[in-house]
């Protein structure tokens, strides 16, 4: 028996070494490219490739929202309900990354995952998701992230306070954890009954007595106030709360729970961080060197960095040679040639030409 185990172990070790040798030969054959670049042409979803997913289904939801079912590649490590995932889509030829809540349970049939998005005003990517995405398309994917999740074991009494598309992460939690949740109250705000995303499914859960659903249709009743929440949910203080929705709603809740000394019981999730409004110049932060410099809207970031003693990569200084390109991690820069503003969200790494870009508000440059 122990002999067998040993032999199996040795075989596995041998196979690993063999695999490494084969890959080393493949690397020599493909130089200076990565062999993976060639394999990806035929097996883009293989384990070890950059994470991608194939679109399996695109389903419209209420309120112009859309659910996209994806089959992720072999490198996908799974998710916990309530988490979100970064999806990279080529919109008009430009790779753009956005985060969407996962609405499927982790063990969905066929190893698929689903995300649900609601188009936002001037939302380039969500519009693409809703209108352009076709079954069979490949999209780029990050691993699931976020700590807006249910603990294990789940709390005895849970309250979800959601608004609009804020229901999406909570739907993921309900779909997978409903059996282990004993006492659930969901207070959901939406403009009108017809626009409630997953409205039918939520009402069915309520009809079966699995959750207590309080729908508020804000077109008629106005925004939810904390006092109202207290009367809707009398045992508020006994519940662990997950809230997701518009910033206004979350701010009010956070203030209230903080004042009650119960901040630990409130978990919130925001879809958008407040971005510095593009303006005339701003602070350039070089995140690696730790240097910050105030710069006007006419000074190239390259010049501003050099003036502050940062060792900057540079080249032609006229926007041609691309030797000065650095990743913009967050904030906005203005192209001095066109006046066009480029904005990066946290997690982005938009490469900008520092010799022809000026700060347009606070911006973080990875250098």
């Amino acid at each position: 028996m122990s002999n067998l185990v040993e032999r199996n172990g040795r075989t596995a070790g041998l196979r690993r070494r063999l695999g490494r040798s084969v890959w080393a030969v493949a690397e020599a054959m493909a130089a200076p490219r990565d062999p993976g670049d060639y394999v990806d042409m035929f097996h883009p979803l293989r384990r070890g490739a950059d994470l991608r997913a194939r679109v399996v289904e695109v389903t419209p939801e209420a309120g112009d929202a859309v659910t996209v079912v994806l089959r992720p590649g072999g490198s996908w490590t799974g998710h916990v309900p309530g988490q979100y995932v970064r999806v990279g889509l080529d919109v008009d030829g430009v790779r753009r990354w956005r985060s969407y809540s996962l609405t499927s349970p982790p063990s969905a049939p066929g190893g698929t995952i689903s995300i649900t998005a609601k188009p936002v005003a001037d939302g380039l990517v969500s519009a693409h998701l809703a209108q352009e995405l076709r079954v069979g398309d490949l999209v780029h994917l990050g691993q699931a992230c976020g700590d807006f999740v249910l603990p294990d074991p789940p709390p005895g009494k849970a309250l979800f306070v959601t608004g609009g598309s804020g229901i999406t992460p909570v739907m993921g939690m309900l779909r997978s954890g409903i059996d282990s949740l004993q006492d659930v109250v969901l207070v959901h705000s939406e403009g009108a009954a017809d626009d409630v995303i997953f409205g039918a499914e939520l009402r069915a859960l309520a009809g079966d007595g699995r959750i207590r659903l309080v729908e508020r249709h804000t077109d008629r009743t106005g925004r939810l106030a904390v006092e109202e929440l207290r009367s809707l949910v009398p045992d508020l203080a006994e519940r662990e709360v997950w809230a997701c929705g518009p910033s206004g709603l979350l701010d009010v809740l956070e203030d209230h729970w903080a004042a009650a000394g119960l901040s630990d019981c409130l978990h919130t999730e925001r879809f958008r961080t407040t971005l510095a409004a593009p303006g005339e110049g701003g602070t350039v932060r070089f995140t690696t060197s730790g240097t910050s410099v105030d710069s006007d809207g006419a000074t190239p970031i390259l010049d501003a960095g050099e003036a502050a003693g940062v060792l900057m990569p540079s080249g032609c200084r006229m926007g041609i040679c691309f030797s000065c390109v650095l990743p913009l991690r967050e904030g906005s820069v203005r192209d001095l040639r066109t006046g066009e503003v480029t904005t990066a969200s946290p997690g982005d790494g938009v490469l900008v030409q520092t010799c022809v870009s000026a700060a347009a508000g606070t911006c973080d440059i990875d250098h």
Partner: protein
Amino acid sequence: MTVMQKKDQNPVGHLMPEDVEEIGRRLDEIRHDVVESRGAEDAAYIRNVIDVQRKLELGSRAVLLASLFPPAWFVGTAGLSVAKILENMEIGHNVMHGQWDWMRDPKIHSTTWEWDNASPAEQWKHSHNELHHTYTNVIGRDNDLGYGIMRVDEDQRWYPFYVAQPLWNFVNACFFEYGIAAYDLELGKNLRSKKRRSSPDFKARGRQVLRKIRGQVLKDYVVHPVLSGPSFLSTLTATATANLVRNLWTHSVIMCGHFPEGVETFERRSIEGETRGEWYLRQMLGSANISGGKPMHIMTGNLSYQIEHHLFPDLPSNRYQEIAPKVRELFDDYGLTYTTGPLPKQVASAWSKVVRLSLPNGFTERLLERLTGAVTDGPAGRLRLVQSHT
């Protein structure tokens, strides 16, 4: 040719400063239109070219596994030659120019691309994008004018070394990728003095080039031949031939860009305080196109639109064809010469210059004059010959 500033008839002498700025404004407009309309179709184009190139390369390498059979050798070598040309020209050169950076795809980006060539991308980008594209055709600043081994302009000083430059040029054409690597390293200049030879920067860059070359040689002349088993030798000759074909082709295309007759060169001092309009004008007059059909444009990496490329080095190459008529209209409107011609004509023009300038200026004319003088004028001619020696 002579630097533009010394010519009897300055080709831009008729332009007022405001004309030059207007040319700049109109070119900015052309650029703006392309930048605004870049989109999914362009992205699909470059991804398609990359896809075709990689499949062609894989297929050709697979066929060469049986290169012992002559038909397989020919098909595989032809395919690999085309694949290598596509990789260097339409893909590598243009990606490293940042033409596709707007797609924000880290796999097709100027900062991450490495090409199938002896010169490391980083060094090539410096010497090509920064130096050549900034100082295009400025004598003493743009080393592309003769690559440091040739004299391609009357205003470059003649040294006896240049007598053999047709030979240097031919050797350079055959081993062009190594020529580029040596050029990017500024090997000639750096090896000359001990101080430069031993500078840590030069040594580091030298090691970088050697590493790159080792990888290239290992791939083309060891791994693929060995995998071919009994076809070892024939695969070796096939890859060597493909590299030679690629070298000769790219060398010819590059020569057509700035060496043919009609292309202007510029004095070192002439670019001091140059405005954007003046920079544009220098690019217009300092480059030459190659006429031809679609296959020609793709195989030259659209450097057949060298003029458009030099005006807008970072616009996607597939758009040069579309803007060429507008650029040409600008030349016509301002009475400037748009230098273009079919490949054989332009290559011949560049070569004839290499041959002519291997000798000092006017040497051939003087020689002919003397010879013909000697023959036709009889004693008087001989007298002149004697006089000139005294």
